[in-house]
């Protein structure tokens, strides 16, 4: 497939690996912020191919993993109401709330539907005016525009039975918080698809204030290796900067039209992140014009966050303070079939990535 096969070329990847081995003299800790990167690194078996001087840490870039249990509890509550259907991406269905999951609620008779796009939920809402449709909006800058267009569409159609329950978040506040928390990170492998939308300006403060190198990376093995090489070179030459490796999809200004749509539909709000707590202006909620579609307003859903289950250290994993394998529950009581924390639920969660792919 075009733009996929070429970037999985073995010879070119080997060339990059040779260069990395040659050039990575000083120790460097690189955090991949994006869960998609975590997943791809493991899927292609990259960590074991890197020299010992490079340490990879997984950060808070899996939207499912950072979503609080309170959100899941409310979603389950909504799905149990009469004449109400909850639509969600497949990612959320097995995430544990305080007592249950959407999947289990479904078995108890709740109305939960997996969709690939919020537009499918809009379509269903238009066809079935008697039923309230709540779409669970998770995801960062990449996914939030889909919800934004859905809200515009709902508004256009005058739907009275479509609501968005937003847990949308934006990346930069979390990346800054990681550094503030004192996690030792020399460089960030920056999320490619988030940057496709938002551009790269938002990473500049990380370089200016903290001297952390930032390379925006694609998701194929050649992309990842080239980005790692670029970060290694920044480190060796002591010139931290924002660079784009994923040039075929990321422009420094991002996708301006998508940004405009986001700004029309959403406004920033404080948001709760697993592991990081409440971060100011790190979430997105429907703006005043779209209040009527905001499930948290319409249903009066609180933002209180219940405590994590005993022993679960997803919070520390998400901050890069702990490797999944260092958690006492990992592989013992916490497995993909019976996840205790969110990092084991999501395919791109650090714990599940380690569980599925890590060669240990």
């Amino acid at each position, binding site marked *: 497939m075009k733009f996929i096969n070429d970037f999985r070329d073995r010879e070119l990847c080997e060339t990059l690996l040779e260069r990395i081995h040659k050039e990575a003299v000083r120790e460097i800790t690189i955090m991949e912020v994006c869960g998609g990167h975590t997943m791809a690194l493991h*899927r*292609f*078996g990259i960590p074991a191919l890197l020299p010992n001087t490079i340490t990879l840490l997984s950060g808070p870039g899996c939207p499912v993993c950072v979503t609080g249990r309170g959100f899941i509890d409310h979603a389950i509550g909504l799905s149990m109401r009469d004449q109400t259907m909850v639509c969600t991406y497949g990612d959320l269905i097995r995430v544990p709330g305080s007592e249950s999951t959407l999947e289990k609620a479904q078995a108890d008779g709740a109305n939960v539907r997996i969709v*690939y796009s919020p537009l499918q939920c809009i379509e269903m809402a238009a066809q079935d005016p008697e039923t309230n449709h709540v779409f669970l909006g998770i*995801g960062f800058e990449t*996914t939030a525009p889909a919800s934004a267009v859905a809200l515009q569409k709902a508004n256009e159609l005058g739907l009275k039975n479509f609501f968005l329950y937003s847990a949308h978040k934006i990346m930069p506040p979390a990346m800054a918080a990681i550094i503030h928390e004192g996690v030792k990170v020399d460089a960030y492998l920056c999320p490619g698809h988030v940057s496709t939308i938002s551009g790269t300006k938002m990473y500049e403060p990380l370089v200016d204030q903290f001297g952390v190198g930032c390379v925006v990376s694609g998701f194929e*093995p050649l992309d990842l290796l080239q980005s790692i090489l670029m970060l290694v070179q920044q480190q060796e030459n002591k010139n931290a900067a924002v660079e784009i490796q994923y040039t075929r999809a990321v422009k420094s200004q991002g996708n301006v039209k998508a940004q405009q749509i986001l700004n029309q539909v959403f406004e920033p709000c404080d948001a709760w992140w697993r592991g990081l707590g409440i971060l100011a202006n790190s979430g997105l909620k429907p703006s005043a014009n779209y209040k009527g579609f905001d499930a948290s307003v319409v249903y009066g859903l609180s933002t209180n966050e219940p405590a994590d289950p005993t022993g679960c250290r997803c919070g520390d994993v998400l901050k890069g303070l702990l490797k999944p394998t260092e958690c006492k529950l990992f592989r013992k009581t916490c497995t*993909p079939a019976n996840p205790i924390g969110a990092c084991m639920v999501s395919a*791109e969660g650090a714990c599940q990535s380690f569980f599925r792919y890590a*060669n240990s």
Partner: protein
Amino acid sequence: MQTHEKILLGHGSGGKLMHELIEKVFLKHFNDPVLLAQADSAVMPVVEGRLAFTTDAYVVQPLFFAGGNIGKIAVCGTINDLVAAGAQPLYLSVAFIIEEGLEFSVLEEIVQTMAETARYASVRIVCGDTKVVGRGQCDKLFITTSGIGRVRKEHEDIGSGKHIQPGDHIIISGTLGDHGMAVLAARNQLGFTSDLQSDCAPLNLMIQPLLDAGLPIHFMRDPTRGGFASVLAEIAENKLFGIEIDETMIPVSEPVRGMCEVYGFDPLYIANEGKILLVIPPKATDEVLELLQKSGHGKHAAMIGRIVEDYQGKVVMKTNIGGRRIISMLAGEQLPRIC
């Protein structure tokens, strides 16, 4: 039958309607002399060697998909379970649970496919049963098929795989994931269309020549639900050997690969209905591949890995860029995801 376009509860009552249903749908297509005798049991001669006996229940939503329907899977799935045990499939029993309201034409098309598939595979449908349940008590149609096959003495250990040993080669008879993706496409819930076909097929015609040629086969399994990866994980589990497979050798069609990228699936975990995995000693590899590739269902057969002394109890895949990753059993159904 054309007096009733839909199945009624009465069609399962044992009375006149049921008689009509059996006559005009089942006996019309399932016309084996043993079945036509309509005795309470099918009576057949005792076979030489050992018996293989298997049963499976089939539910699929939707009933029809590109490349097949529930009836075709119900026949092929049971045949393939026999094949994987090294058996020559001989007889099938079929039982239908029908939800009232199912269209006759739908039922008849499915029954006809079953009859054709069995005939194509030279397997006889010799007994059956039907029940009709009320609306909502089942999803349109459930089918249970049991099968009996004959296993020659020299093939009796194929099913258990007790002769698997380090050095053996692992062969897969074709591309992975076609069935699961064709069914997903047929559900039409994810907003895509594809000309992808299910691989659903009876595999005895492809495997019998291998058995007849006296080729040494240490193990066979049809990788249905849970996919190819789950079968490999099962083979290695608690063993003193490991498995190493090579990603570049694994056949996956372009459309399946593309859809997997879009929805975040792994083709190694997607269901197949017309593929078989073989473990054989390396000296037999060339001949096995040649015979498989000669058959229409084995065109893309490939050697994709080997049993190794390392990685005890584990399956390790060499990725296409030279990395390694562990392949574990599927944990829960794969879901379309955004991240």
